[in-house]
């Protein structure tokens, strides 16, 4: 069989490195598109033998993109390891810092990474599909505000948490120091600005994307649609929460399928290995692995903004709830299966995070100086979870009685999403590549499928590029090897 190979590489604007291989058949149509990433090696080995208490610092240094998410997941795993419940003020300060991080990170993605596809347009020339193109259409003032608001929020995180890469913040049972009234004022000011910024961004999305029928058609097109399960953290009233709660899974019809504490994650989540990729593909054990297919019979699930909205019954803050209702009213009810709707969902989450910052900063209890419960229990096993910007992040450590790690496992957001991302790339490739025609705009349409998830491989993998040695094998339906691609 003769095939023509098109490699899209590197994936522009992505923080990290991935490769998409598209295989065409003799008719010039897509036979199969593969999405692959190199994987960071040796974390488990590195962690074993180290004190568990080092994990919030170490894991936050694994990733240059979302260190705050790793720091928080690791800190929560330590709470669990030492069986300590942090005082209320400590939990609130942690959530405040975490929401600040979510605003900053979501803003970055929308304007710099995902935004160019929509604000500038998916078929615009590559040279214009970037932040400069966004600024040309949205105005320079917006550019200054994006940079200004992000800087203010990053400074807030540094103020209470230390350097983002070397945080002095989370400890088992609480945090390092209480919030001062001056800190609180600074957070209130940052929160107010963040809410205005979020409202403005949603308005921009409405004006530029939703009022353009062509864009809405793209969002709703079958090429960017998968009917999968969705997972996300929810609070006691099934509303989206980034910091804590239950893991809730809804089925492709939007009905609750599972709701469990993260402690039970191994009962429900399993990992599938494919010969062509180093990444492990997560799926729901209760449904089973049926391959890269959607529908209720397939255990494929998704995380990240769209999944979180689908897995919840609503948002916990008023304006975000309004935006949530408009989202489902516009896109035809719950759940929404359109991958590109992630961009809109991300802005709704940005608004929620900003409103939640306001709520937490206004809460009088947040100034309570009691921010640490000292651990006394003998450690054995600890599991922590947060919703990272890119989806559910789980840290799991086992230790000896001195707290020295004997086993460590991380499930990062992109791993949860890996199956659906691979499906999206394949499906988008099939729908837009015909008769071997692969123009620049068409290739971007394939990449868009990928970028909507905001996949980050800086922790699932490391960021440095180059030719990672990799072997790709392709089998026919009878299990025979028909092609081997070696990259040395």
């Amino acid at each position, binding site marked *: 069989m003769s095939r023509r190979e098109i490699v899209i590489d*590197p994936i522009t*604007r*992505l*923080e*990290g*490195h991935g490769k998409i291989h598209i295989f065409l058949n003799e008719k010039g149509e897509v036979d199969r598109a593969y999405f692959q990433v*190199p994987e*960071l*090696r*040796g*974390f488990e*080995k*590195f962690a074993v033998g180290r004190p568990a208490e080092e994990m919030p610092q*170490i894991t936050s*240094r*694994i990733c*240059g*993109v979302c*260190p705050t998410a790793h720091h928080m997941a690791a800190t929560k795993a330590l709470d669990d390891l030492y069986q300590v419940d942090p005082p209320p003020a400590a939990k609130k300060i942690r959530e405040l810092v975490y929401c600040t991080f979510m605003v900053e990170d979501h803003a*970055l993605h929308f304007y*710099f990474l995902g935004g160019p596809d929509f604000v500038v347009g998916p078929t615009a020339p590559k040279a214009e599909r*970037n*932040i*400069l193109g966004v*600024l040309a259409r949205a105005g*320079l003032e917006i*550019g*200054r505000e994006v*940079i200004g608001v*992000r*800087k203010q929020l*990053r400074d807030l995180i540094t103020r209470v948490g230390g350097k*983002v*890469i070397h945080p002095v913040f989370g400890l088992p049972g609480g945090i390092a120091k209480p919030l001062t009234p001056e800190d609180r004022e600074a957070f209130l000011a940052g929160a107010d600005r963040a809410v205005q910024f979020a409202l403005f961004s949603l308005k921009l999305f409405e004006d530029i994307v939703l009022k353009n029928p062509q864009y809405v058609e793209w969002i709703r097109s079958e090429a960017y649609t998968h009917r999968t399960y969705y997972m996300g953290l929810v609070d006691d009233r099934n509303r989206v929460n980034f910091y804590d709660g239950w893991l809730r899974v809804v089925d492709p019809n939007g009905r609750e399928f599972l709701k469990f504490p993260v402690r039970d994650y191994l009962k429900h989540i399993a990992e599938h290995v494919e010969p062509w990729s180093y990444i492990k593909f997560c799926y729901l054990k209760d449904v089973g692995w049926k391959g890269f297919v959607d529908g209720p019979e397939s255990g494929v699930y998704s995380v990240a903004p769209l999944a979180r909205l689908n897995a919840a019954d609503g948002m916990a803050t008023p304006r975000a709830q309004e935006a949530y209702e408009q989202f489902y009213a516009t896109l035809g009810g719950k759940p929404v299966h359109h991958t590109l709707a992630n961009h809109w969902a991300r802005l709704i989450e940005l608004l929620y995070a900003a409103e939640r910052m306001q709520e937490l900063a206004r809460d009088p209890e947040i100034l309570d100086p009691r921010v640490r419960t000292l651990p006394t229990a003998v450690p054995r096993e600890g599991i922590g979870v947060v919703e990272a910007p890119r989806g559910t992040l789980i840290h799991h450590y086992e230790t000896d009685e001195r707290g020295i790690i004997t086993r460590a496992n991380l499930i990062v957001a992109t791993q949860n999403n890996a199956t659906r991302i691979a499906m999206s790339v394949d499906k988008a490739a099939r729908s837009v590549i015909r008769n071997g025609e692969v123009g620049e705009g068409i290739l971007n349409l394939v990449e868009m499928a990928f970028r909507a998830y905001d996949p980050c491989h*800086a922790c699932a*993998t*490391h*960021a*440095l*590029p*180059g*030719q*990672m040695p990799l072997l790709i094998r392709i089998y026919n339906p009878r299990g025979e090897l028909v092609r081997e691609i070696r990259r040395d």
Partner: protein
Amino acid sequence: MKILILGLGNDLLGDDGIGLLTVRALREELGGSEGIELVESSLSGLALLDLLIGYDRAILIDAVQTGRAPPGTIWRWRAEELGAVRAPSPHYAGLPELLAIARALRLPFPEQIEIYAVEVADPRTIGGALTPAVRQALPELVRQIRERVRKSLSADAIPEGQPGKSQAGRTIEDG
């Protein structure tokens, strides 16, 4: 004149720590000098914008895998040239874009950004040490940057073409 010397990378990841280790070594010699700031960062991509704002000049130190030279080779580029460089590190992916943003928004951004990058062998194993070739390149890299900074301070301007386009992408053999 405010000069930023920014080491990029991750010291948990073997050779990826070369940028940070270089800054640590330079800190012993240049720390406390008027107008020079030495910063280590594991942040990547667009977060660099925040770090670069407010300086007149910047030197970035990083690890790369181009596959076109043996490990330990020191590369020198200017930020403007990166678009043409094959497989630059995503630590500064989009650096030309950042420059364009800064210009468009008239942000106080370094007029000149130079990159010193070391060709590395293994930047992906957590807990790994520097590989021998990269470790051997460290003193030479420190020396080159120290000289570069001293020249800049005495002339208070980067002389054209030093290291300019004529030397772009040239490999300087270690030792």
